């Protein structure tokens, strides 16, 4: 199955290589200029500490854009297949993308989690992970995937190496948001229709608790120390603050009523959270301890996916309607740049550059 899938993507690789060649040719010329510019212009992500690439899933054209945030260019475009949404970087540096066949009537051959080798841009594996795997989380050791199956109302537990689904767990109705706690012990799966969050104990791979949050939860994130979690509630226009030890809601952060919060990420220190507001074309900056909205930073149109640079200095949003990503300086809380990507960017993941970079 994997071979056939890869064979069908031959054209994609050609295109990706072309894009990569073009990017490499220009890279030498632009690198110094970019570095100099980065030193001159505040808000330009150019430091060695934050050297990384962005991987952006483009839902409407079936591609992943690889973005250099220093040069602010797309250095590669990878065809991945129908409906890429959730995107994450595994501990070994490979990039995982969930594909959902939105024209399906049941589990489709297009419903996959694909694995991208970042060095070559090739898809090296394509795993079944149940129907409509929109979002997923990766265990700390990179061995296990927890995928929300939106249509089926299940969470699939999958061995990443073999692609074998080892368990399918009943969670709420229309699950989407998935997050793994920093210690790897818990997986939260938010379900949009039932407004619930189900808690998976990764030691047993069983659902051990479920609790209500506000209406239509979309995104989930744990604080860096694992003590808290935030759940964005799209219809309520709120964030639910969760005590991640008791698995209980302990507070609510009110956002503008029609803000439609989706993607959420904590700052490295956990003091702030950044929340993509699809209805506001902005990012909410939230004081976690104060449980309050600090500011809304304008970005592109209908941001959903969010990610932070490794040092937390820059925030990136995938803007689904303006077909670009925004770069936000988290010190000045201003948008400092945009990069055009594919059609309908949905998710964004940050991959620190290593030897292949």
């Amino acid at each position, binding site marked *: 199955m994997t071979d056939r899938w890869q064979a069908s993507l031959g054209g994609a690789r050609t295109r990706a290589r072309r894009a990569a060649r073009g990017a490499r040719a220009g890279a030498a010329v632009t690198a110094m200029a970019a570095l100099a510019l980065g030193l001159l212009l505040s808000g330009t992500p150019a430091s060695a500490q934050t050297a990384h690439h962005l991987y952006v899933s483009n839902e409407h054209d079936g591609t992943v854009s690889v973005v250099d945030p220093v040069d602010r260019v797309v250095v590669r475009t990878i065809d991945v297949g129908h409906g890429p949404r959730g995107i994450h970087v595994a501990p070994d540096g490979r990039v995982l993308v969930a594909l959902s066949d939105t024209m399906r*009537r049941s589990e489709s051959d297009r419903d996959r989690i694909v694995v991208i080798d970042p060095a070559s841009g090739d898809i090296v594996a394509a795993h079944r992970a149940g129907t409509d795997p929109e979002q997923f989380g990766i265990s700390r050791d990179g061995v296990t995937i927890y995928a929300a199956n939106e*249509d089926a109302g299940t969470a699939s537990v999958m061995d990443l190496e073999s692609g*074998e689904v080892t368990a399918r767990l009943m969670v709420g109705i229309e699950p989407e948001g998935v997050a793994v706690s920093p210690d790897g012990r818990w997986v939260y799966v938010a379900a949009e*229709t039932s407004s619930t969050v189900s808690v998976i104990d990764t030691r047993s791979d*069983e659902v051990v608790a479920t609790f*209500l949050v506000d*209406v239509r939860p979309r995104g989930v994130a744990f604080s860096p120390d694992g003590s808290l979690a935030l759940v964005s509630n799209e*219809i309520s226009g709120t964030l639910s603050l969760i005590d991640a030890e008791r698995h209980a809601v302990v507070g609510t952060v009110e956002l503008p*009523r029609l803000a439609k919060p989706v993607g959420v990420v904590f700052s490295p220190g956990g003091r702030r959270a950044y929340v993509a507001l699809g209805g506001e074309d902005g990012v909410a900056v939230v004081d976690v301890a104060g449980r309050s909205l600090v500011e809304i930073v304008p970005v592109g149109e209908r941001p959903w996916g969010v990610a932070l640079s490794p040092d937390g200095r820059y925030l990136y949003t995938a803007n689904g309607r303006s077909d670009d990503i925004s770069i936000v300086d988290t010190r000045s809380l201003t948008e400092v740049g945009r990069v055009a990507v594919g059609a309908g960017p949905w998710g964004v993941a940050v991959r620190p550059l290593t030897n292949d970079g």
Partner: protein
Amino acid sequence: MDRRRFLGTLGGAGIACLAPSALLARGADGVVIAVVDADQGSAYGRGAILGIEEGERAAALLRSPLRFARYQSPGVADTAALARRLAGEGAAGIVSALPGRIQRSLEGAAVSEGLVLLDARPAPPVGMYGADRGQEREPPAAGGVFRTGVPSAAYGLALLEALVSAHPAWRWEVVVEEGAPEARVRDVRQRLGEAAGDANAAGPQGQVDARVRIGRGTRAGDQDDGGIPTVLIDPATPGPPQPVEGFRATLWDAALFRYGAEQLNERYRRRFGEGMDGAAWSAWMAVKALTEATLRTPPGAGVEAGLAGPRAAFDGHKGAPLTFDGPGGTLAQPLYVVGQGETREVEWPGTERDG
């Protein structure tokens, strides 16, 4: 160790068809939501069944004692006894969509027993404007009654609004029947603006592209047309105008896909083998809203606050928080006008909300 498994069946999640005498008492075995006529013989029934199944699943995951009980339609003479029994046995509320007189009787009985009732009729016979406009009759029961549908006249207005938006160059003729509600006539004229002529005025009207007829509002009886603006396309030749073909206003359509609508449509299609329509959506929404309000209500508190409190809002897969603050306890929500390969959204209540 083979870890492959499927935890697909939740214990106790199956639907039980309970006779009233089998109702579970609050505190002992749980709290009950009563659903009338939840069977597959109607779109309402199918929507209610999906709502029940999803509600039972949520309750099981949350380890809530919430249960659902199905009832056959009572006669008018039986509604008071049914409401009394349900109240005594700890029911949180009732979902129904009965013919007018029985529905009204059940609403009155439920309210008098302190129960909430979710009216799932797609077009409940309620006034469009409330008492201050004084043009149409009041809701048949106050407080405790919530409606997931909208007044029948709202469909006509939505259709009109969508057509005006889609065809801004059309010239319209307004035909006002004797006794038509003044507020409705005012609304229609406001929407049409300068494009509106008046068929009741003296003199030649000139060529028109479409005609809207405003009927007389019904102030009594169960078949309330509420002064429905019947939107008609006027043929170029003389003769009676023809109804608009290919357009319809609805609460829901099986082809909707934004805001998670595709997922709901798919769940319904998978369960019943057909597309979800407005009646099914209204029933599903009624059960869902009452279920959520009940699950969020602390023990001992009234579920009404969960339906209409300041933070009460519901997700109907329409992309906006839905609240029961429309006239007559109706659910404020987008309506859809479907036709000619496109779907337009029209907000209910619209501009008349502040009237």
